[in-house]
């Protein structure tokens, strides 16, 4: 193992960058056009959560999960441009992730971004974040239901 394979990260310390866990976003993620290489890391062995840790920026990581854990029947239509870009044919194995957002210290406020799923072509390791123009998909879908309003005494 050479030093070039190690990345220093804010959340996970020094980790080894393995080609087998590499996911490449040639166009970057939305708002992060220069961050193209990410490591897919399982949060812990029992957890459904994964992290996309930037290889180029140790501070940058996104918490992701399979949206099917949180919502039933989530099957957004894949834009032609996405299928083309990722070279996805009908039977190409793929992964769909939703980016999870948890405000610091407020787990109950966790939301998932159903309007911007991440699609991975498992065969090539190429990935992209899709922007769904359909307004029925929420950018901040609450996972733990609606906030319970409390009336101050």
């Amino acid at each position, binding site marked *: 193992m050479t030093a070039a394979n190690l990345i220093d990260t804010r959340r996970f310390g020094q980790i080894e960058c393995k080609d087998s866990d590499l996911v490449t976003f040639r166009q970057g993620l939305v708002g992060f056009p220069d961050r193209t290489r990410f490591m897919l890391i399982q949060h812990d062995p029992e957890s459904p959560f994964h992290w996309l840790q930037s290889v180029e920026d140790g501070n940058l990581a996104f918490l992701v*999960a399979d949206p099917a*854990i949180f919502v039933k029947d989530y099957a957004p239509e894949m834009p*032609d*441009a996405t299928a083309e870009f990722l070279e996805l044919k009908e039977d190409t194995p793929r992964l769909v992730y939703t*980016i999870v957002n948890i405000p610091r210290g407020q787990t109950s406020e966790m939301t998932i*971004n159903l309007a911007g799923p991440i699609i991975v072509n498992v065969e090539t390791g190429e990935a992209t974040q899709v*922007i769904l123009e359909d307004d029925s998909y929420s950018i901040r879908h609450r996972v733990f239901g609606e906030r319970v309003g409390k009336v101050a005494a």
Partner: protein
Amino acid sequence: MLVLTRKTNESIIIGNDVQITVLEVRGEQVRLGILAPRNVPVHRYEVYVRISEENQSAAETDPSDIPETPKSPDE
């Protein structure tokens, strides 16, 4: 910012392969036709910005806040 004046049915071309045509102007609304390679994503800007802002916010998520067991759908 480059500013160009176009009439209905006139176009601009960006690079060699992105063509934007003014199809109709009605009051405050302008309808645009966009010809771009199939692998070039085209979005309304405000939608793009909302996703970008959400990504910036989500990038602050800390491992210590992850729930032990996520809730099942529709419980």
